[in-house]
């Protein structure tokens, strides 16, 4: 019997908060929202800690950092 291929998922970690596992499409949407939202922040590859602008084929998990506002 042929094996049913598992859908690729991405773990999403919010820097100081919760984590969740989502589909690649959902992860791409999260990334897009972060970068399109003026209140957005940064997304990094969870394994390399490199800031990324797209979900490449090697990305297994991402870290979402929210925008940093303050200084005073």
């Amino acid at each position: 019997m042929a094996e049913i291929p598992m859908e690729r998922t991405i773990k999403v970690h919010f820097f100081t908060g919760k984590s969740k596992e989502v589909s690649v499409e959902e992860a791409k949407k999260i990334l897009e929202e972060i970068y399109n939202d003026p209140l957005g922040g940064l997304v990094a590859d969870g394994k390399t800690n490199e800031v990324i602008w797209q979900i490449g084929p090697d990305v297994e998990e991402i870290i979402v950092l929210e925008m940093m506002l303050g200084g005073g």
Partner: protein
Amino acid sequence: MLTRSELARYDRQIMVRGFGVEGQEKLKQARIFIAGAGGLGSAAATYLTAAGVGMIRVVDHDMVELSNLNRQVLHWDEDIGKKKVDSATEKLKRLNQEVEVEAIAEMVTEANISQLVAGFDLIVDAVDNLPTRYLLNKVALEKNIPLFHGAVYGFEGRAMTIIPGETACLRCVYRGVVPGEKFPVIGVTPAVIGCIQATEVIKYIAGIGQLLTNRLLVYDGLNMKFTEFRLKKDQNCEHCGHLARGKK
């Protein structure tokens, strides 16, 4: 050349391997522009003054308010209602009379930024909003002045060092256009980040150690962890992309 008094005052840092008298003399020659006399600015300016830099220009247009005092340690109860730069300058001068401290009570704008930073060796970003950070980033790139970025929110803080034309700039990292607004912050967070900025400044001036370039250091005080995120220079960056392309 260092005076006998300066040799005594800075004795402990002169003892640091790789720093020495040479590092101290370099600090004495340095002219530092600090944008912001709030939480980050208080910490960075205090330690740079204590360390014996040559000259500091502090720019801030705000007045001291009661709600500043949990974190902006250069301002005290008696300073409420005063200009922040005056309050900061007074304390810094008392801390170390060897350091020339200059106060400018102006808002940093596109119109005055170029003139404000003229003649300075480096810029410390201690402001509280992104539009002004972008102005600092642009002028740093235009004038080839290193920029030392810091930001805080709640228990979290960030820092990175930008060497124009060589490393990722602030615009390579941040794309947002968030205006300044009232934000929550635990008093010690800007102290941690401001001291990291001051450390980077001292290392840069002395020419020692590894700078926080192409790396965004994120401090999470709530869980007490430091995480480093690797950054790449964006070849299409609207602020620094032309510098990268010009180098090819």
